[in-house]
């Protein structure tokens, strides 16, 4: 314990520098992502004129359209113009319908955050509880049951879970709506009805990773010598778990939680499709397939920021929780 205290002293001195370094690292990643996404979207065969003109395209019409959209300018110039706009708070206009990208993203981001937030609020506490308890009662019937159930849930494709849930609860039993119609939600009751199935499906598929990583990290910590030592010293079980075990297992747990949560925004295309939920993941898929570069870029920016926010937080927690402070 003396060592941990010393570590904490170190920490107070180095904390600002440490966090600064992490944030700088995150910014580097962000730059990498922006450039890469722009590059990939431009390398992909075809451009927005394909989606606009479709089967009716002629070379002449494509050339005129490309000129009109500014797609005949060099990639570098286009990137620069985009970046310049973003730095001034302008996300540009959709190449497809000419409307501001920000207007297309705003309502959908709101919807997505709502869904992700509700799912996280359900999934995180449940999975931490299940993970920690099954580590404590390792190799008991309870542990096995939790393992099999969570694995079983994640191993069924999410479109199956979602579609079957709709079929059972909306079509057969008529107790819940088939569509998660956010626009008509005006009360808590309506919210619960509309969000019950999408949130439950999302929670089920994200649960497994968090439960398993929590259980593994906790189990490892609980078998460490210092826990046995503490046990011998007569530390009570609640104190043992909360004070001795959890702080040591927190790094991997927070990492797993961060990774799971970051996928709740961009990785939920299937759930959005099954429940016809107008979120940002579907917007990104649409934009990628129509090569609507400004929209793709803006969505990528949102996903990347969310991801970095969560993982940077996880990284900082990991470092703070290391046995001897952080790396000097």
């Amino acid at each position, binding site marked *: 314990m003396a060592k941990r205290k010393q570590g904490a002293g170190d920490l107070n001195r180095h904390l600002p520098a440490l966090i600064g370094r992490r944030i700088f*690292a*995150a910014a580097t*990643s962000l730059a*990498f*992502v922006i450039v*890469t*996404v722009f590059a*990939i*979207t431009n*390398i*992909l*065969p075809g451009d927005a004129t394909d989606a606009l003109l479709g089967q009716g395209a002629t070379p002449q019409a494509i050339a005129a359209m490309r000129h009109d959209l500014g797609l005949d300018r060099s990639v570098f110039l286009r990137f620069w113009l985009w970046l310049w706009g973003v730095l001034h708070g302008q996300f540009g206009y959709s190449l497809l319908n000419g409307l501001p990208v920000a207007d297309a993203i705003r309502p959908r981001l709101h919807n997505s955050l709502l869904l992700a937030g509700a799912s996280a609020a359900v999934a995180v506490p449940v999975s931490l509880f299940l993970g920690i308890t099954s580590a404590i009662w*390792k*190799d008991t019937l309870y542990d*096995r049951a939790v*393992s*099999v159930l969570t*694995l*079983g849930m*994640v*191993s*069924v*494709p*999410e*479109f*199956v879970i979602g*579609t*079957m849930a709709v*079929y059972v609860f909306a079509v057969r039993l008529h107790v819940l709506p088939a569509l998660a119609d956010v626009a008509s939600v005006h009360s808590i009751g309506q919210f619960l009805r509309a969000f019950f199935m999408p949130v439950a499906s999302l929670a089920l598929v994200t649960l*497994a*990773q968090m439960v*398993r*990583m929590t*259980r*593994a*990290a906790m*189990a*490892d910590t609980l078998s460490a010598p210092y826990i046995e030592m503490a046990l011998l010293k007569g530390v009570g079980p609640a104190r043992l778990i909360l004070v001795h075990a959890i702080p040591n297992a927190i*790094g*991997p747990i927070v*990492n*797993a939680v961060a*990774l799971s949560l*970051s996928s709740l925004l*961009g990785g939920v*295309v299937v759930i959005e499709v099954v429940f016809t939920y107008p979120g940002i993941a579907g917007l*990104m*898929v649409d934009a*990628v397939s129509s090569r609507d570069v400004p929209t793709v870029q803006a969505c*990528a920016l949102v*996903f*990347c920021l969310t*991801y*970095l926010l969560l*993982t940077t937080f996880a990284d900082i927690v*990991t470092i703070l929780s*290391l*046995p*001897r402070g952080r*790396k000097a």
Partner: protein
Amino acid sequence: MIALLGKLRGKHDRAVLLIVFWLFLALLGPLCSSQDPGAIGSQPVFSSPSITHLLGTDYLGRDTFARLLNGIRHTVILCFASTLIACSVGTFLGIAAVTVRPWLEAVTGRLADGFLSIPSLLFALLVIAVFGTSTVALIITMGIIYAPGAYRTSRALAQRIVRLDFVTVARARGESTAYIVLQEILPNMAGPMIADVGLRFIYSVLLLSNLSFLGIGVQPPEVDLGSMVRENMLGMVYGSPAMIVPVAVIAVLTVGINLALDSSRGKG
């Protein structure tokens, strides 16, 4: 990864046996059915099981049992291979990032973060555009998509381990980095890492069907289990085995492998 495998081989017969069993089924399974998985006759679609069609027919009237065996082959082989790649690369880089040089961590860390926050759809489309639709391209795509996640997990684990007393002691003894990695770090992170491998395997089974849907990879009339579920999804309302059985097989395959990995960890 080699050490992980070594560990498996030495002590953990159940997991190894199970993996061998699935590989065996993947290679020899398709011989068990007299039906051609691509054969389309005049049978009705989504029919119930019969003597000629043990599991009935699918959405085009093809034999579900023959297609199931074909699906197991593709799913098992492709997902085993890509999970192996993703986890080997991820673990290797994760440990390297912690043990070698700080700048390596900086570079790999930024790359991993970058890859993780770029939607996998973009990668998949890029791979199709550059390499076309081949099995190798498919395995590599899936490997790339899951390696950064494995990297993050292994790095988090390794960071914790290198600061433990026995590693410091080993360092003080003047052991080489290779020795420390193989003898001290790898064995101690094997547990949580195996949990991670198992999950990644599940994800890869599901990802495969999404990629097949996009157009990369397993080409018709060949099929993988996830795509089989997807193409027969409408059979749900008729309770068709063409949709239900592949779901069950995916569950048995992935849950089984995970439980076997868990129990082998428990013994170790």
